[in-house]
């Protein structure tokens, strides 16, 4: 089952897609989010999100600053002030 992942900046909706897993650099340590993750909220340290499109594929890195992650029934939503790449 895929995980719905959204990356939003103040200027626009950067990503909205189904992926396998996203590893998020939370302020209290990295955490991976798969589909069906329990509801969760965390602030994010400035760093790179690792997006795994498929289970064994190479991750795609997106550098973000000023981020905040929310995991709910609808999937993972990352709010970031700035996004590179």
């Amino acid at each position, binding site marked *: 089952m895929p995980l719905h992942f959204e990356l939003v*900046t*103040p200027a*626009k909706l950067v990503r909205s897609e189904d992926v396998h897993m996203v590893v998020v650099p939370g302020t*209290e340590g990295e955490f991976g989010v798969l589909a069906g993750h329990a509801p*969760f*909220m965390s602030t994010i340290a400035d760093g790179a999100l690792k997006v795994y499109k498929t289970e064994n594929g190479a991750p795609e890195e997106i550098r973000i600053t000023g981020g905040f992650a*929310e995991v709910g029934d609808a999937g993972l939503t990352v*709010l970031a002030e700035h996004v590179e790449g």
Partner: protein
Amino acid sequence: MASLKELKGRINSVKSTQKITKAKQMVSAAKLRKAQAAAEAARPYAARLAEVMASLASKITVAENSPKLLAGTGSDQVHLLVVMNSDKGLAGAFNSNIVKAARVKAQELEAAGKTVLFYLVGRKGRPVIRREYPKQIAHMFDTTDVRYPGFNEAERIADELVAMYEAGKFDVAHLFYSKFRSALLQEPTDQQIIPVPAPKAAAVAADSVTEYEPDEEEILAALLPRYLKTQLFGALLENAASEQGASMTAMDNATRNAGDLIKKLTIVYNRTRQAAITTELVEIIAGAEAL
């Protein structure tokens, strides 16, 4: 009665004015589309953040040790009015409407014995407020060097506001900007931004099992300045769209008025020309008869 040459000159000058207003109208229409798209693109972020803030705020009771941005300084003596204007004119009553709203609020607050300070964004609001409240302008934020005020500007404004707030320079901040309703209608709006009014919680009962990392209070403290930035950013975008909308309407009117004026002047010009010809003919005929 003006001479034929003078009339011709006036008609030509009104014509070139009409050309300018027409061009400005078309530019505004194009920019309006862009500004509207930008405002729309900013909505998901603002909506999500407001949701998160609402669900967090509903879990925390405002107490002594809450973040100052949420709880306030405990007094409401000094009010800061953040007035957002554009840098360019030719937009009808757009700027003066915002300034008027701010002045009404300032008079109201002063009548209640409060101190009022101004923080001006954009160039067009400065002269009026400087004339009436010369000593009460805390800062003038310059947006002339950027083409489209964006998130970076919102960030800088928010940082300055938070720094001033933390230095105890003011207790309450209000934001004045123009809400974009349609190209024809822009609404000057007054909104309190500091202390941050808690967004209304709507249906947050379901996610009571959500885990927080770090805890709720720390997340809230981290999100408050961001929420402020988002609000300022939203206001900047709304303002930009409103400016273009107001400009479009104003220039449309101006173009139409110029057209009417040209019509009137042309009629006067033709009449004068006819009168001149008639006089000349009468003179020639009278001369011929006298022979």
